[in-house]
């Protein structure tokens, strides 16, 4: 889980072109949207593609986004659960 969260932070920075943000600046439980990291609805769509590209997981309903992408930890938990289903 720690490794996955670290990878996710790097992937998020790269996918969203978060200039001047380092992986260690993003807390595991810090909210990614609004007052947290300041992401918005376009970023949510980018993160859906990130899951598809890097983790082979398709999010069918964009309305699930806010729960999955609440924080790096919720993303990692979602990925772990989906992987378990795929296996």
């Amino acid at each position: 889980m720690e490794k996955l969260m670290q990878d996710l932070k790097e992937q998020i920075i790269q996918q969203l072109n978060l200039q001047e943000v380092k992986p260690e600046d993003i807390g595991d439980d810090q909210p990614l949207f609004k007052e947290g990291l300041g992401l918005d609805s376009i970023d949510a769509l980018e993160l859906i593609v990130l899951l598809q590209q890097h983790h082979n997981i398709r999010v069918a309903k964009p309305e699930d986004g806010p729960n999955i992408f609440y924080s790096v930890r919720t993303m990692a938990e979602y990925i772990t659960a989906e992987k378990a289903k795929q296996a």
Partner: protein
Amino acid sequence: MMQGSVWIAGGGVISGIGRNLDECMASFEAMRPGMAYMQHLHSSHAGTFPVVEVKASNEELAALAGMPAHWSRTALLSRIAVQEAWNASGLGSISDYRVGFVSANTVGGMDKTEDFMAAFLADPAKGKLRQVVHHECGAVTDLVADAMGIRHHVSTSTACSSGANALMYGARMIRAGMLDVVIAGGTDALTRFTLNGFNTLMILDQQNCRPFDDTRTGLNLGEGAGYVVLVSDAVAANIRPWCRLAGFANANDAYHQTASSPDGTGNFLAMKGALEMGGLQPEDVGYINLHGTGTQNNDSSEGLAITRLFEKGVPPASSTKSFTGHTLGASGGIEAVFSAWALREGIIYPNANFSVQMKELAFSPVTAFSRGNDLRNVMSNSFGFGGNCSSLVFSKE
């Protein structure tokens, strides 16, 4: 300097529900929306998303347009609708007037550029250059202007509101005395570029779109072109115009790059501005042709802005995109033609696929086609990316 009225002398339209205005009217009357799986565009999403294609190959359209079939479909569609609009105006020879052409489109000759890219990306020395020669939005407009013999012309592109902005600019050039006649509207062919673009936004419906329905989940892309012929008082005096372009306004939502503000600030400002310019009250409006794309966001924002402006009661309203799909840069032009014709014929168009009332709204769209309504003023809304919001008001006199 700014004086006089601007009249609609005629209009022409080609869309997925008909190759001319008569055919489109027949589709509305028969409740026949144009959604289907694509026959002419090639895309890996062909079996996923219904679209509203003009039911004709490039070769057929080229024959109708009198243009080569290898030119952008956007130009072919434009030429066909422009010619119909001109014929409908009864103005005779185009060389007898100071004529302008203001045509909106959002991606120019992209249908050809995307074919070019496959070869070009494999080898930058490859790819037929004739496929990119009309890539620019303006190049498409030039082709049609040349075919019509018009030398005063321009393209606008404010995404999905650009067709409406074309009418405004044309009307203002007439009022300033620069031109006597302006053919104004928009055109856009279906492309993989826009289809995939809207797909990344996850706002394409896999079923037929359901504007202003609580169960709506997105839009269907369409294609087509629509133009009106705008004329000055002096020119209008010699013909029987359809109606008058009484008011228009362009405002910016300044909220988000693609999404509308929840209360539809820009939508409200555009509609209010158009009424004010026409010297009208909300209760004077007999029918609203909604922007009504079928996305959660648009219909909610537009509906709330309408509720706020039309506080004494919302007039009959419908989204003709439930028949034509969202034709992007063409939609403002196509819906201007529908709105002006509605006024002339007393028609109120149906909104297809409506069944569940939206929770946040107290009004619902009209679901049946009707003629013989006593309409005095009709409003047409067009909203787009970049916060661009435009509203037009047509009046009988």
